[in-house]
């Protein structure tokens, strides 16, 4: 049996299309590159930025689950990230739980909190959910401004009012104490979270979410428990974002409330739209836009206000002309360009061949 035939047979047995197989190859190659080569290729500045970008890919992934899969728009994911950061920091300071367990518990607690807070809004239609989550972002910001992030202090809040000196660091796993090692660790965690979300999308929840997104009454008529599956999506997005928050705390060693302004939730939503909410690649593009573009602007001496302007224009452009975002548009545009160049080359080549 030829190799091509064997590959096709394997794809068929796994239920994968040609595109899935190609995606799989690219993902495996990308992860191997990100773990093995990327940390040693980047300067310390870009190692930190790449780590944060991978963490924000999780936030965009959560937004993609909500908006792209179920059609629920949450404008409060920045606040959920802050919640995850708070819980993660508190756990990492207060307990000696192994690091992977601590971030999973942080994700689970954030999931419960996020779901409970969003529960009243899940009973109402889409626009109300967007409005309530926007207000939630403002409310969580108010609470965090008062409580501050844990810094190794005592009591429930774990905050110690330190006016001088360096605050204690939020711990990292012992195998990833350095920045390059933590980047590798983050890539692995992000991969696990992407696989978790992929399993949901390919499974029963994914089918229920697709039905809800198409038509809620039709999904209801087909026997889909709309409230449960909406809550499920909210829980999954909150879990993934909670894990991201815990990683973010360890990444920067210390968290401050000014790192999570209300505007961040809106910018996150805008970049998620720009990246593309209907594919998981969109989350990666969104993270690149959110973290790497402003960092590049900083390096080039361009004000970060231009990044905010870019995100505003980008959100408008995506909503009016390209709803599937860059992750969908870019490969199509490149393919079109490739076909155009190939066509031009073919037209030019015979003419050249016939020349005396």
């Amino acid at each position, binding site marked *: 049996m030829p190799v091509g035939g064997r590959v096709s047979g394997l794809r068929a047995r796994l239920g994968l299309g040609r595109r899935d197989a190609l995606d799989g190859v690219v993902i495996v190659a990308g992860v191997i590159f990100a773990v093995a080569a990327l940390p040693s290729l980047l300067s310390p500045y870009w190692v930190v930025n790449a780590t944060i970008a991978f963490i924000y890919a999780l936030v965009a992934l959560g937004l993609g689950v909500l908006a792209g899969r179920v*059609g629920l*728009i949450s*404008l409060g994911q920045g606040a959920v990230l802050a919640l995850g950061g708070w819980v993660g920091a508190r756990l990492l300071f207060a307990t000696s739980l192994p690091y992977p367990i601590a971030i999973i518990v942080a994700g689970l607690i954030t999931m419960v909190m996020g779901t409970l807070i969003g529960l*009243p*809004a899940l*009973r*109402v*239609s*889409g*626009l*109300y959910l*967007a*409005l*309530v989550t*926007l*207000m*939630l972002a*403002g*409310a969580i910001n*108010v*609470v965090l*401004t*008062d409580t501050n992030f844990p810094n190794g202090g005592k009591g429930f809040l774990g905050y110690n009012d330190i006016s001088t000196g360096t605050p204690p660091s939020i711990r990292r796993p012992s195998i990833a104490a350095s920045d390059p090692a933590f980047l590798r660790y983050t890539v692995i965690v992000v991969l696990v979270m992407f696989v978790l979300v992929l399993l949901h999308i390919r499974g029963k929840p994914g089918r229920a979410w697709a039905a809800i997104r198409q038509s809620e009454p039709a999904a209801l008529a087909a026997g889909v428990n709309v409230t449960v599956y909406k809550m499920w999506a909210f829980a999954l997005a909150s879990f993934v974002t909670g894990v991201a928050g815990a990683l973010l705390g360890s990444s920067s060693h210390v968290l401050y409330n000014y790192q999570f*302004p*209300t*505007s961040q939730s*809106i*910018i996150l*939503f*805008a970049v998620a*739209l720009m990246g593309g909410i209907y594919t998981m690649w969109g989350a990666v593009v969104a993270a690149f836009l959110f973290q790497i573009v402003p960092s590049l602007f900083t390096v080039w001496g361009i*004000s970060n*206000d*231009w*990044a*905010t*302007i*870019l*995100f*505003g*224009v*980008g*959100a*408008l452009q995506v*909503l*009016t002309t390209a*709803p599937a975002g860059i992750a969908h548009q870019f490969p199509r545009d490149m393919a079109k360009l490739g076909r155009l160049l190939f066509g031009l080359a073919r037209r030019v080549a015979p003419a050249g061949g016939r020349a005396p």
Partner: protein
Amino acid sequence: MPSWSSFQPFIPIGLAAGGAYALSGVGMVVLYRATGVLNLAFGAIGAMGALIAWSMINTWHVPGGVAYVACILFGGVLTLVYGMIFGRVLAARDPLVKAAATLGLALLLLGVMNRLWPAQVTRTLTLPSDNGGFAVGQANVDWTQVIAVGFGIAMTAGTALFLRVTKLGTAMRALADDREITATLGVPVRRVEAAAWFGSGLLAGAAGLLLADLDTLASDALTFLVIFTVSAALIARLRSLVVTFIAAIVIGLVDNLITPINSITNFRDMTPFVLAIVALLFFAGRRQYSFARGGIR
């Protein structure tokens, strides 16, 4: 618990803030019912208008009255331009997409404001009406606060009356009921929508001017004061102008009356979220919240 006299000074402040939120809220509800667009850039539009007025007064030494009119007009023109470009393109899309697009406008304006008026510089915009006033009990009331409440009442009543008795208002109500049938009846839909965009923009500019004086002249803070407006509009189920006004006044009052209560004063800005959630739970228990068509009341 603080004494009654501690609360008194915060009553006019709360009423004035509520009046300004009501202005935005009324504009937001009318625009939503007429065009299906929930404009979440209301705060950013008002903020930019106020910053332009500040620059006109402090940099170009333009008389205050001209600057204030420019602020209000800026709100109207910018909203109209947005409506004519993006309102048309997104006319057939889901209300959620239309609302999300206005967030793009909010971000765009936020970036431009931070670029042109850096946040590091403290700015204040004081209206001439701040200088006079009167006392009621322990509370000092200035004329700006009176204007904010009065303008809020006048705009709510005036808009409700306008929608009832004028031809344009009737056309707006018809649009709110059914856009397709209204168009079939020969109503110039685009012109009516343009009027709704412009009118709501004028209210955004006026609210921005008042809030810049009553609260603060900072792009971020003013942009996100839209959360208070959204809460009032949400409590009114994006439909009733009178309920929007009452909800805005209640939000303004509660937010400010919490100030003297030390144990919860730091959490006072959670007021819009808490009140909106209470309203949601209340209504969700009675009947399903939905965006079923219905006129502006």
